[in-house]
């Protein structure tokens, strides 16, 4: 199977300068591989750093050490060291991400949010319908939507462009059973077309149905405070 992503030696910690410079190490020597057509579920106790790992893989967090090699336009590039412009290109073409919450942009209607991600208008409309968002909501900005409705717009934006790699952070958290089924179907379809998926699935039943294997993220012991502290 084609290797899509290979993370190795990832280290990530936070230095909180406003709290006297205390240092919180979260990831140490983290390594992960993702191949085409598979879904890897991150597991581990809460607070272990699953979310931090996902954000490091998405580029939202910068890593302190290590590499994230990622297949972009047919070649492996070190995403962790990529220039902001390259990160933008990779996010636009290769790396999709569904966050836990939709970050609402004022005045942009639901349909446009999906279209702007690079989805044909009709396909975007069909996808929103499939997410059980009726047509009357398509032309409205999601700011006034319920949490579940916003999340479904978010999912449509993430699944619409058919990214080769997709990162999912609790994609079914605020969904009812029917919509959960839709998401499971979307994930299975994505895998079938060869996409690689890394996700955090709070819902074990969903996880068991979509994940090919688990990747455990374990908490590392609290590090000694920095000298500054």
């Amino acid at each position, binding site marked *: 199977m084609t290797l899509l992503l290979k993370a190795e030696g990832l280290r990530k910690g*936070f230095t909180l*300068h406003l709290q006297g410079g205390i240092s919180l190490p979260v990831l140490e020597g983290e390594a992960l591989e993702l191949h085409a057509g598979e879904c890897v579920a991150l597991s581990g106790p809460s607070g272990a750093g699953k979310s931090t790992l996902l*954000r490091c893989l998405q*580029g*939202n*967090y*910068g890593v302190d050490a290590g590499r994230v090699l990622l297949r972009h336009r047919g070649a492996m590039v070190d995403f962790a060291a990529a220039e902001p412009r390259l*990160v933008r290109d990779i996010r636009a073409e290769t790396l999709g991400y569904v966050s836990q919450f939709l970050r609402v*942009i*004022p005045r942009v209607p639901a349909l446009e949010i999906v279209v702007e991600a690079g989805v044909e208008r009709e396909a975007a409309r069909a996808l929103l319908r499939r997410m059980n968002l009726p047509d009357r909501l398509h032309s409205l900005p999601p700011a006034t939507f319920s949490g579940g409705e916003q999340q479904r717009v978010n999912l449509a934006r993430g699944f619409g462009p058919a990214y080769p790699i997709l990162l999912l952070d609790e994609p079914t958290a605020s969904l009812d059973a029917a919509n959960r089924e839709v998401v499971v179907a979307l994930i299975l379809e994505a895998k079938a077309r060869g996409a690689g998926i890394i996700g955090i699935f709070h819902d074990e039943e969903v996880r068991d149905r979509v994940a090919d294997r688990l990747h455990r993220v374990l908490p590392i012991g609290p590090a000694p405070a920095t000298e500054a502290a």
Partner: protein
Amino acid sequence: MSALLQAEGLRLRFGAAPALDGVSVAIWPGEVVAVVGESGSGKSTLLRVLSGQIAPDAGTVHYAGQDVLALSEAGRRRLMRTEWGYVHQNARDGLRLGVSAGGNVGERLMAAGERRYGSIREVAARWMERVELDPARMDEPPRNFSGGMQQRLQIARCLVTEPRLVFMDEPTGGLDVSVQARLLDLIRKLAKEMGLAVFLVTHDIAAARLLAHRILVMRRGQVVEEGLADRVLDDPRHPYTQLLVSSVLAA
């Protein structure tokens, strides 16, 4: 591909205080770069140096291969009215108040050599529509428009010649919050549609998050942190950036 605007090692002092202390910046085609920092951090000075309005004590500024600091007055003005745009914080500084809305939008076209009255009006009307102003009001003076409308008119005036690089100095400063959101969304949309490179100076972190691809954080004349917009705001490293981000509610 190379950077559209590239500045290296900029230094400038006003008296004893360094306004720019070794600043380097590159802006790529189609990239929206926001500079954040409190007043006095040097961000406005940086804007004026990059746009060739004031000369630094040291350093270089290149635009599309041209040495901006060595440009003649004529060359700088030509850039300013063709490939560059400048959006002032105060619309009154960027508009001619004695001239109709349509005339304000059409002026750059005339400066670029357009001599057909009909096409000037056509393009001006289209641009008024694009910034969500009623083209039927194109013969009215700017003072008939609200603050937010004036700001949108200024943006139309600036973009009508389809510049490649637009400098914006606190474009939403002094506007009501609801008006700000509309303006930010408009800027975001136009920048995307036109593939504009934007150099935006703002103290509004939320505006920077919404518009910018990349953020520079300035403090005391230095860039203390820079990078991908969401990474700088969600994973700030420098103590000052952490302070700046933590001071903002739900940015």
